[in-house]
């Protein structure tokens, strides 16, 4: 790739733009609640991370942002007595409940088209998401290039909606205490700031994660009554309008069975006989929800598991259970895209367009040299695909390519 001077020129350029952004936008920046109780952290374009910082005022924070122009800005979901002390001496006082919904965790058909990886030990490369181990050398470290994409972000939004239902209907949390953000790259963050959840320990948070992800669900405790010991069978099932997980299970199972094909039923490991029974009774099922006769207990378990999967929210368990987690600060730029972390409205999130709302640079054009980039959309326009080409692009679009490392300023 580019010679050293054009690389450092590119870095200078990006950093300059970030500084310009913080110069211009700092008045609009909203600090996290109880700023003085939070740990702040910054990743730098020069490499390295600065952690354990404490700010008592927004002014202090914004002047640091202007001076430092960091690639990423984080704050702790936790509240501390001494946010600037070492981890052991911070004095944990509680933490917001946070969820990360990452498009990378959700398989989409287009990732093959726009994502790629290179093995750092042997240089082997491929399309899509990096494998667990390199097929050539078995190595486990990869340079991954994931792309910002409408199609990939859409299912993430669906996960957010499912999560919100859990938080409000089941956990009884108030919508006023919940904020949803587009992270500026590949997913959504959901923050709950409330006295109710602040004191939850890691174990309790893990139970919440299991609850929203459908992990450890025992169908017998959710309306699937099983009778008989020698030849057990399912004698009743939850109803579509039941509350909580019962209703979810019923709906998930109904949803799965009503469009199931022989292949998808084989896919969950059902025996041929059971599949025949299900397909034969399907019309009846679509007319009214009820128990299918002749499906054994094991079969029901598999079907219910699938049903639960459809209704659960796919969050990253590590983020939610980590009570010291640093998360991106709203209103700051993502170092891989130069897009802002922006709030999405709770009602009307369906119509929220992350690739429009997150744009931080509305003006100017930049000419850059692009090595290779797939087609992408930003706001109302689409760009690319590009290959080894000088192009003039609006600042925001150019910055995405520069930040992703697929283009340089000559």
């Amino acid at each position: 790739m580019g010679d050293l001077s054009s690389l450092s020129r590119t870095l200078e350029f990006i950093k300059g733009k970030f500084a310009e952004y913080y110069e211009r936008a700092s008045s609009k920046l909203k600090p996290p609640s109880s700023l003085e109780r939070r740990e702040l952290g910054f990743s730098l374009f020069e490499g390295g991370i600065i952690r354990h910082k404490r700010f008592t005022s927004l002014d202090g924070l914004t002047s640091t942002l202007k001076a430092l122009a960091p690639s990423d800005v984080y704050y702790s979901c936790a509240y501390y007595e001494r946010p600037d002390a070492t981890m052991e001496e911070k004095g944990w006082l509680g933490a917001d409940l946070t969820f990360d919904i990452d498009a990378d965790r959700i398989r989409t058909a287009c990732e093959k088209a726009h994502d790629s990886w290179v093995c750092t030990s042997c240089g082997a490369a491929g399309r899509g998401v990096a494998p667990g181990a390199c097929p050539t050398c078995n190595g486990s470290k990869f340079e991954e290039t994931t792309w910002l994409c409408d199609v990939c972000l859409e299912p993430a939004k669906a996960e957010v909606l499912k999560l919100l239902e859990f938080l409000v209907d089941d956990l009884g949390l108030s919508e006023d205490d919940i904020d949803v953000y587009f992270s500026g790259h590949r997913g959504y963050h959901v923050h709950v700031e409330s006295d109710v959840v602040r004191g939850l320990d890691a174990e309790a948070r893990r139970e919440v994660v299991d609850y929203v992800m459908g992990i450890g669900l025992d169908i017998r405790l959710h309306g699937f009554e099983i009778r008989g010991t020698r030849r057990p069978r399912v004698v009743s099932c939850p109803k579509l309008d039941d509350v909580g997980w019962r209703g979810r299970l019923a709906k998930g199972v109904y949803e799965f069975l009503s469009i199931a094909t022989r292949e998808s039923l084989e896919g969950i490991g059902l025996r041929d006989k059971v599949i025949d029974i299900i397909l034969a009774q399907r019309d009846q099922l679509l007319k009214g929800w009820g128990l299918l006769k002749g499906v054994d207990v094991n079969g029901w378990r598999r079907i219910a598991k699938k049903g639960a999967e459809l209704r659960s929210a796919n969050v990253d368990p590590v983020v939610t259970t980590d009570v010291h987690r640093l998360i991106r600060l709203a209103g700051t730029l993502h170092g891989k895209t130069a897009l802002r972390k922006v709030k999405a409205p709770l009602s009307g999130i369906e119509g929220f367009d992350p690739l429009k709302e997150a744009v931080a640079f509305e003006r100017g054009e930049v000419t850059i040299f692009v090595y290779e980039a797939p087609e992408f959309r930003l706001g109302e326009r689409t760009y690319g695909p590009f290959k080894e080409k000088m192009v003039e692009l609006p600042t925001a679009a150019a910055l995405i390519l520069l930040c992703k490392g697929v283009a340089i300023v000559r």
Partner: protein
Amino acid sequence: MLMERMILTKEDLAKYPFLREAAEYVEDLGLKVEDLDDFAYEQVINRAEERVQEAILYAIITKRSYNNDVEILSFPIAILIISTIGDNFLKRRYALAEAKRAYNLLKLENEEKILIMAKNFNWIISFNDKGVIEGLPYKFSIHFINYLKNATSIKGEKWKLINRILIEGNVPLMKGEVARLLAEEVRRYVEKKLDVKELPNLPMGLARRVEMLRALFTREEGKASLEEVPKAVVTSAFPPCVRASYEMTLLGKHIPHVSRFTLTSFLINVGVPVDKVIDLFRNLSDFNERMTRYQVEHIAGERGSRVRYIPPKCSTLRTYGVCVNVDEICKVVQHPLSYYKKKLQLK
């Protein structure tokens, strides 16, 4: 609040000496540590000693004095004794014993009394107006925060939040279940009580009794540790989760971070020497001796914080997707190490 306070009798305080009111009662008596050798406290000291003895020997307190004052006063003194002995394992054991004692008494109480007890611990709890759900008497409704604080340390599928009914933040519960959760609250409360920073000087007589109890504890603990995991490592008794990671690693395949931590801490805890564990990772293409040694020694407690880590429990491994190919033994254990012990017994 006032009304609830009135309903608690002195006998209640004797049954539940951890209640706020019981502590206030003791405080009002103005008892001094240096007076404890006084003959007037003979009965109280005897009873405190009995509490501790039962906890050491059976991990439950069953006996009871029918003198309410003795019962109430012996509790803070037992706490003083355990704190003086100072062993963390004993502290946990004592808290557990008091919790079990409380549970056995709570189960027999009526619903009003249960409600008062729960409110004493500041729970958000009410009578459930629906009452019966699917034929079961869900008389109570408690906030999920209070539920989780206590339920996470109770074993069993039915205590997982996901296997509960949860409506707008509230979990409907039956009386026995509330009693069980309360017992857990008691356990945590007693554990916290035992965490005293400054210990008073005990008068001679009491100090001597404490020494005898310490000796009793040391003897019992010695017996228990003989039952620990045997030295020879039996790979065929590894649980499925560990075995999967183990085999992948033998094949030189990379495994996720959580799996690697689980595997390493498991091996260390069943007695595999640090060097042998490091050798296992040699097959990996990006093996780095220094890094690996650092990590393994850290987990083995030979560095830094000097604590030896144990593998995460099954429920955690399930959350992170490490739990695979569960078998019959898995269904009765909550921890990969208990799986190993259990399987060894079956062999």
